[in-house]
């Protein structure tokens, strides 16, 4: 090897090594740095000493005055959300609400006079990025707990990492049942698709009086597949008939002419599309062109301020299940609505409400645990009872899910309107 070539090779090797070090491939066997201080945490307040009727804390009460381990400088909460990409409105709403909650808590004195530090990462609506964001939050930012994600596929990608590291994770809005089944560190503050699918199937069968329904699922999307399956189960149980087979699309498809023409030929009363707003907008627009007279219904993936912009007039008459209704007159909802509107200049959607509740549930878990010890926080989360949030009053059950009421919303004249309220089953 000639002299100059050897030096060039060495230089390139050096550059590559530097790139790798800076790029931050985290060492796989990172020793777990104990976050809890030298002072042992106070005796566990996490065993549910409160019975099912007694609340373990809601709102700001009890947070600032909680007893907290003194050596901890602050409480680091990480969040991984889709701030860009096709599901950007999901992540943006949730982020704004989480920030609102954290700011409120900090302004009122934090948790046991410790401030919350929020670290938010953008996973660009992609599950690969979700996993790497969480990897960074755990290894580099060393967060005490994680909030995220909205899309079930992304939560499923990241949950195993949190479980393995013992970091408690709360998903505000992922409804696929498998998310919390990943492990005992994974929680959610929303209902699951077993319930949501049933809600819509009943609504479609009983309120919309549909005899025949067709289903169009997004095969690449765990949420869509799970919700579609559950809808099919319950709808047929209730005596309805599923027509046009099992049509599907792949996320990112824009043209639905093939499946829609086929579905139109079967003339269903309802077309159930359990997908996200970007795809649903296109389906709705194209449905009329293909002679489909069916009402299009779906789940909480429709909840986005962009749905009407993308679907135009075709958005009117859609029905979808959701977690809460922003027009709810209860004081908790109205206060949240006004605070969010004042701070961000936009109306909150259900995802924002869930993000807000998730942050408060987490804050109360920290307060009851009295430290940032992950196991203690995890136990405290599991013991959450009768939390009075914007999205309702709920407890975390043994499967780490929340039993909550649902609403069915519709779009009328380009805006969301309430169609029906369904109590927690």
């Amino acid at each position, binding site marked *: 090897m000639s002299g100059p070539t050897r030096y060039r090779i060495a230089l390139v090797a050096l550059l590559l090594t530097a790139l790798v070090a800076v790029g931050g491939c985290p060492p796989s066997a990172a020793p777990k740095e104990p976050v809890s201080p030298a002072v042992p945490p106070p005796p566990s307040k996490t065993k549910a000493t409160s019975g099912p009727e007694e609340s373990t804390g809601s709102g700001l009460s009890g947070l600032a005055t909680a007893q907290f381990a003194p050596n901890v400088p602050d409480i680091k909460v990480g969040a991984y959300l889709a701030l860009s990409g096709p599901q950007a409105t999901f992540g943006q709403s949730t982020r704004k609400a989480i920030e609102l909650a954290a700011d409120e808590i900090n302004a009122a004195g934090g948790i046991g006079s410790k401030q919350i530090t929020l670290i938010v990462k953008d996973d660009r609506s992609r599950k690969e990025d979700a996993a790497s964001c969480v990897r960074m939050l755990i290894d580099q930012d060393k967060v005490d707990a994680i909030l995220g994600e909205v899309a079930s596929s992304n939560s499923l990608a990241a949950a195993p990492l949190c479980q393995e590291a013992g970091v408690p994770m709360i998903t505000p809005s992922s409804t696929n049942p498998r998310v919390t089944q990943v492990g005992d560190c994974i929680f959610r503050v929303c209902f699951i698709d077993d319930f949501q699918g049933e809600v819509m199937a009943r609504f479609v069968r009983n309120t919309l009086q549909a005899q025949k329904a067709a289903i169009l699922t997004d095969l690449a999307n765990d949420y869509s597949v799970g919700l579609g399956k559950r809808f099919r189960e319950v709808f047929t149980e209730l005596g309805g008939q599923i027509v046009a087979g099992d049509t599907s699309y792949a996320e990112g498809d824009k043209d639905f002419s093939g499946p829609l023409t086929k579905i139109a030929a079967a003339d269903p009363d309802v077309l159930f599309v359990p997908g996200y707003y970007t795809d649903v907008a296109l389906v709705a627009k194209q449905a009329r062109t293909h*002679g489909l007279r069916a009402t299009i219904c779906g789940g909480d993936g429709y909840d986005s301020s962009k749905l009407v912009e993308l679907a135009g007039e075709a958005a009117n008459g859609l029905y979808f299940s959701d977690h809460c209704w922003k027009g709810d007159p209860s004081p908790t909802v109205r206060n949240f609505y006004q605070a969010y509107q004042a701070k961000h200049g936009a109306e909150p959607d259900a995802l924002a409400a869930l993000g807000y509740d998730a942050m408060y549930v987490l804050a109360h878990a920290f307060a009851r645990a009295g430290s940032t010890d992950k196991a203690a926080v995890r136990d405290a989360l599991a013991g959450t009872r009768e939390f009075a949030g914007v999205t309702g009053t709920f407890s975390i059950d043994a499967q780490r899910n929340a039993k909550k009421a649902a609403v069915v919303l519709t779009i009328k004249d380009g805006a969301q309107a309430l169609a029906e309220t369904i109590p927690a089953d």
Partner: protein
Amino acid sequence: MHGGLAQQVVEQAFNALFNGSVWALIAVGYSMVYGVLKLINFAHGEVFMVGAFVGYLAVVELHWPWMAGLGLAMVACPLLALLIERAAYRPLRAAPRLAALITAIGVSLLLQNLAIRIFSAEPKGYPRLLSDSALRLVIIGTAIACTVALHEVVHRTQVGTAIRAVSHDREAAALMGINVNRIVAIAFVLGSAAAGVAGVLYGMYYNVEPLMGFRPGLYAFVAAVLGGIGSVRGAAVGGLALGILLVAASSIAIPLGGEAALELSKYKTTITFLVLTAALLFRPAGLLGRGQVQKL
């Protein structure tokens, strides 16, 4: 049953024609550039995307009528394509073909990410300017008009003869006094104008987003190859063939007896590319292509 099987087939054929029209409009650009430069212009899908954004900005920000937006895209896209040709491809004309190919991919990624930076990756919708059924007819009509027009240009005009000469043998054409640079530029302009038109119409029918050029670009490339790359007619035929293939794959269910049926839509991408591969195995120069005899 709403419409029998015959009606369904007719409607699906129309869907295929509609989809095929979009790809044909884009495929024409791939064919022309490949013809004169033997280069697959991977950045062509992004020219399509830029056309869509130009139209979107004209209509939504400047409040122009949509046809004016179309006209603007027909100007902007060729300009962009000329810029790419000058800056990225011309310097590499003598370099190995792989270098130009990789540069093309690089330009594609550059444009995509630039668009994400400027516009954010969220899809944007047009206000309702034209009914969807009317828009479908416009797209099909435009595709037919453009492909016919381009075919006439390539086969009946002097410029067209020069283009064909350059595609046949670039050096010989230069020796015959043809200004190769000018001809290459014209080829880019013609192809990109068509892509710009496709972009605006596509954006009006679906939506507009920075990554919208990836899949149509890929499908158009496949269509161009399927039909016989280098020929305008090939691009049209390829587009139609691919449209039929995809619509069929996304809606056919093979009955398996009783209630069960095999839904092909689950495998539509797989099926499409399998058929493409098979077609090329039997006709490597494409459906309309003729194998070129290498005279040594």
